Each structure stands twice: as structure tokens, then as C-alpha cells.
């Protein structure tokens, strides 16, 4: 137990075992703040924005696209404008691209160089998306990776892998599950998972099938 001033004992929250990367980030932040490059408040607001994003926004886009073919056409033409049309924050990337999975084409998104990801519409990326095995194998053996995620595709379905190496962010519109014709947008959105918008999963199965 450390010296403690606020009425209850606990083990130190911060001790000598601070991870090296965390220490580097902390020291850099302190330096940038001391030199007037950034303000602590800006960093806090940036973190608040990052953790406030969720895949529910992307799911709303997909559900509207499933329900409204004209909206889908606008989403495919310019996903950034389509997000703004629904009052959603498309994020800082000036170009956001939606690609559509169909009966003949299946898309998968990866960033082999780091972990570029449409955070504004999908929230923080899953850890596996940032892992070296996913980043290297998604481009060279996408069907093997998809199989490990439980997605088996026939050979007559083309697999299109998108390596988002630069400023553009990609979002997959998964295929609408059969048996969902009577569903409204909110019900449809509940079927649209994060992984299905990365392209490594199909949407949740309809309970109506």
C-alpha cells in the first residue's frame, strides 16, 4: 500500500512498471504541451470523440441502404455525403468509400501498413484488425482468413480485398439476409455487425428465416 490521502487504501494505480509505449506517449504529450503544440483539453476531447464512436452509426447507413435503393446508390457514390445526410459524423477523412457485397463479389478491408479504419462510423478497431497476422494474411490468403472467421465462399464469388493504405476509409455494405423483407430499418440495423462491415462476417442471421 502506498501513502494515501483520500480515505481508502488500494495498490498504487501508477507504479514503476509503466509500459514503455505508455511512458513514451506520456512524455511526448508532456513535451508537446510544454512547447505549446497541443493543449491537454484537445487531447481529452480527441479521446472522448474516439471512445464515443460505435458501429451503430455504420449499421444505420447499411440498414437505410438495404431499405432504400436510392439511398444505397448515393452511399455507393459518396459515403461521406450519405453519412451527413443521416446526421452521422463521417470523420476527418475527406473520402469515405462504401463497397457492396453481392451474390458475385465479397469485399474485405485491411490496412497492411498500420490500422487505418473508419473509426467515425465503426468505433475503435478490434485488436485482431491491428494484428500482424491479420494485416499480412488478409491480403495474401483472404479466403483462408475468411474461413477462420466462419465465412466460406464458393469459388464463383470473387473476393476483393481492399488495402486502405492512405487517406480513404472503406466500409462494406454486407448482403441483406434473406427473410428480412418485412423488417423496418431499426430491426435491420440490429443485424449489421461491426465484423460484417469490415467484411469478415455475414450479418446476423434473421430470426424470420
Amino acid at each position, binding site marked *: 500500500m502506498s501513502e494515501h490521502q483520500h480515505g481508502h487504501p488500494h495498490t498504487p494505480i501508477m507504479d514503476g512498471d509503466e509500459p514503455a509505449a505508455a511512458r513514451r506517449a506520456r512524455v511526448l504529450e508532456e513535451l508537446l504541451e510544454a512547447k505549446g503544440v497541443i493543449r491537454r483539453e484537445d487531447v481529452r476531447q480527441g479521446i472522448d470523440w474516439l471512445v464515443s464512436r460505435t458501429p451503430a452509426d455504420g449499421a444505420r447507413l447499411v440498414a437505410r441502404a438495404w431499405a432504400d435503393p436510392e439511398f444505397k446508390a448515393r452511399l455507393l457514390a459518396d459515403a461521406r455525403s450519405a453519412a451527413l445526410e443521416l446526421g452521422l459524423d463521417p470523420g476527418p477523412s*475527406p*473520402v469515405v*468509400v462504401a463497397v457492396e457485397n453481392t451474390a458475385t463479389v465479397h469485399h474485405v478491408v485491411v490496412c*497492411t*501498413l498500420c490500422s487505418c479504419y473508419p473509426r467515425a462510423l465503426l468505433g475503435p478497431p478490434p485488436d485482431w484488425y491491428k494484428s500482424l497476422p491479420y494485416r499480412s494474411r488478409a*491480403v*495474401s*490468403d*483472404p*479466403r*483462408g482468413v475468411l474461413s477462420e472467421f466462419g465465412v466460406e465462399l464458393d*469459388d*464463383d464469388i*470473387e*473476393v*476483393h*480485398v*481492399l*488495402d*486502405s*493504405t*492512405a*487517406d*480513404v476509409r472503406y466500409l462494406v455494405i454486407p448482403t441483406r439476409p434473406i427473410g428480412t423483407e418485412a423488417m423496418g430499418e431499426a430491426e435491420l440495423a440490429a443485424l449489421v455487425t461491426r465484423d460484417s462491415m469490415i467484411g469478415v462476417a455475414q450479418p446476423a442471421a434473421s430470426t424470420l428465416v
Partner: protein
Amino acid sequence: MTFCNGQRVVVADRAHRGHHRTPGYIKGKIGTVERVHASFRNPESRAYGNDGLPEQALYLVSFAQQDVWPEYRGPARDRLFVDLFEHWLEEAR
């Protein structure tokens, strides 16, 4: 040189010291321009605190997976799409 949709291009096969956004696996490969996204500041300059000007056009270029990976196990029609900056592309002959 600017490129248009459908044009065949080859990715420059050159070494580059320092930050750049052209994956090594795609250098020297021949692909097809699928989209012209927009122009962006050059990350090779921005990474070192410079202004990244002049802006470079960014293209979505597609490649046949079997051209990229000789041991690719999937069907011949599977494709790989990569965002590439103009100064890494040349017209394919």
C-alpha cells in the same frame, strides 16, 4: 502524368528510405486504375513535419491476386485493391 479509370499502370519498384505508403508487396506489379479518389498532401513529407505539398493524386488500383502472389490459392478472378499515390505509378507498356 495523370491516370484515368481503366488504365493499366505499374507500381514503381524503387526503394524508399523513410515513411511511405506504398506496400512493398505491390511494388513492380501491374494493375488497373479503378477510381481516382482525390489529391492529398504527400505523407512522405508530412511524416517529417513538412507541408506535404504539392498534393498527389490518390488512385484505387486493382491487381489480380495471382499476379501479386504466385502461390495464391484462390480463383483467378480474386482481386486486390490498393490505394496508391500518383508518384508511385507509371503507365504500363
